[in-house]
């Protein structure tokens, strides 16, 4: 077995607000191997983005990583000083955001921004840096990269901007890229182009990829492994085929049923009742209890992470019987 690029162990990230402590990430553990794509799936407020920010060390006060280890190739990111983190960010880990304008500075030309990102981490001449910037743009499928380097972000369309943001993430050949809903705002044809490039990238360069999204169907086509998050915890984890074909957690099952799909046109979707609980004052026990049809008195306690089948992890007292899956 190859050593994973990233191993997250028992990560807890809490926000200490005036109203109380928000436990945005609770006891989250997972790992990603080189060249593999991990899908981190959850709805708004499930803690999937905060998990990404925690790895990047981008959680701002009142939030804080309160416990856990984040090992990148053996180095614990939690133990690093902010100075050390700066040299890791952008060089060994890069992040792609949903809105590319979070990455891009609107008043600087693309070449200025890209050259700066390279020279922040490696001492190369501007000429060399510029060549690398051009190659990165070409790599993400931008035609005429030489001319595009001279453009400003507003001169690009949304899809092109996202490609530039991806190119910037690639500049220093990071070991790990965290992508936070990068295609959510894009049209399907553009989304497909970007997914294609990310797939090729992971396969060819050995970069590990964490893909954060609410869209199960994107993960189905893209990822190797999947972690389903609910109310700050990973409730189910396994390979994409295993989780989507035979979900064990009732929440995963409900999510899959909620996706409108071929063959059930016009029929009511099997919906999950209710809505995600507030993380500010979570009820005791399993957070999904209130919305779950299988819940009983045992669910008053928080279910521990179990390994029902090799390669799977689950947090549930009453997993779905495998036969119930159509």
């Amino acid at each position, binding site marked *: 077995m190859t050593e994973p690029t990233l191993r997250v162990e028992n990560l807890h990230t809490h926000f200490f607000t005036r109203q109380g402590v928000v436990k945005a990430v609770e006891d989250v553990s997972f790992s990603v191997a080189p060249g593999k794509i991990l899908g981190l799936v959850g709805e708004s407020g499930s803690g999937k983005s905060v998990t990404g920010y925690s790895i990047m060390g981008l959680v701002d006060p009142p939030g804080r990583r309160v416990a856990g280890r984040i090992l990148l190739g053996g180095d614990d990111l939690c133990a690093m000083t902010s100075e050390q983190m700066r040299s890791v960010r952008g060089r060994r880990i890069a992040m792609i955001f949903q809105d590319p304008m979070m990455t891009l500075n609107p008043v600087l030309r693309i070449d200025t921004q890209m050259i700066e990102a390279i020279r922040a981490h490696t001492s190369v001449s501007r000429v060399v840096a510029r060549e690398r910037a051009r190659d990165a743009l070409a790599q993400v499928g931008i035609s005429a990269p030489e001319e595009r380097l001279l453009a400003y972000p507003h001169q690009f369309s949304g899809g092109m901007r996202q490609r530039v943001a991806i190119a910037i993430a690639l500049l220093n050949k990071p070991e790990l890229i965290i992508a936070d809903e990068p295609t959510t705002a894009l049209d*399907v*044809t553009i989304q497909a182009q970007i*997914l294609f490039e990310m797939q090729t990238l992971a396969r060819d360069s050995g970069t590990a990829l964490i893909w954060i999204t609410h869209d199960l169907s994107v993960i189905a086509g893209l990822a190797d492994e999947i972690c389903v998050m609910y109310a700050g915890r990973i409730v189910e984890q396994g390979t994409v085929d295993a989780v989507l074909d035979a979900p064990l957690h009732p929440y995963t099952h409900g999510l899959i049923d909620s996706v409108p799909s*071929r063959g059930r046109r016009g029929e*009511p979707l099997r*919906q999950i009742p209710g809505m995600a609980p507030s993380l500010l004052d979570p009820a005791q026990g399993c957070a999904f209890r209130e919305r779950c049809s299988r819940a009983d008195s045992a669910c008053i306690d928080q279910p521990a992470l179990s390994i029902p089948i090799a390669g799977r992890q689950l947090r549930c007292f009453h997993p779905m019987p495998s036969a119930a899956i159509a």
Partner: protein
Amino acid sequence: MSTLPAPLLELRGVSKRFVRALDTAAKLAKLLGASAKEETVRAVDAVDLAVQAGEVVGLVGESGCGKSTLGRLAAGLLAPSVGTRLWRGEEIVLLPATAQRDVRLKIQMIFQDSYASLNPRMRVTDIVGEAPVVHGMIKQREQHEYATQMLAHVGLDASLLERFPHQFSGGQRARVGIARALAVKPEFLVCDEAVAALDVSIQAQVLNLFMQLREKFDLTYLFISHDMGVVQHVSDRVFVMYLGRVIENAPTAEIFARTNHPYTKALLAEVPRLDARKKSFVAIQGEIPSPLDPPHGCHFHPRCPQVMPRCRIDQPVLREIAPLHFSACHLNDAAPS
């Protein structure tokens, strides 16, 4: 099919052009011989759309294809530059003023961004109850009770009536938007990306709600979405738009089983699906061109894998290629199936 009653709402040959007029400086420059020109966007270009009572028509396309503009034309929020709007077979602009007002009430719109479409300073009881009072459907003192009923229809509790929009979750705000539209007893709802901003589990709840309301109130929908999965789930007929034109339309089962237009094919191929694992995404190339300067001939030809010389010159017309299945593509002339 000739015995069909007049469609509930029909758009005949409607176009919407947005023109950016020249400012004073540009006019002056033009006088002095500069080549300043007015910029025109044909957001919607000669579209025919007829919706029968009780039908759900889905409208899909990528951003910038004009689907929202068409929705606003249908709802009467925009006036068409060319073309006519008919309600039950009668041209709306020729109706007397009171009848026109009634038609306006019968067609309501539900917007994508419930934050932007609900007044943040109004309480839900006023958001939902104001319009029926203004239009004399109920008395002012009945407003509270009426709003309670409307909220019940969309699955919200009466205890929420005194709240402001920001106190709701996204799914609840979507429901308030629906309740507001229902309050004036519409027959026709234009839903513009009404579920796009919602989480999957909430989206399923709201889609189910739309279907229940359709049964309960005999509603007709024009359902605008970029999400093929959603449109396939709710619609009876699907219209596909590209750069202001309808390029294919057919009953839902037909369009998904026997897709005709290369653009629709590409669009369908690239929709991520739960059952498509580790698929290699092979994208159609390029992006939707600027509507300011659309390509000649078939708008899709620069991206089309099956482009022919003719596509660069002639604009293909929408033609019936199978019963009720219309498509605008020259390939259908080349090889009649």
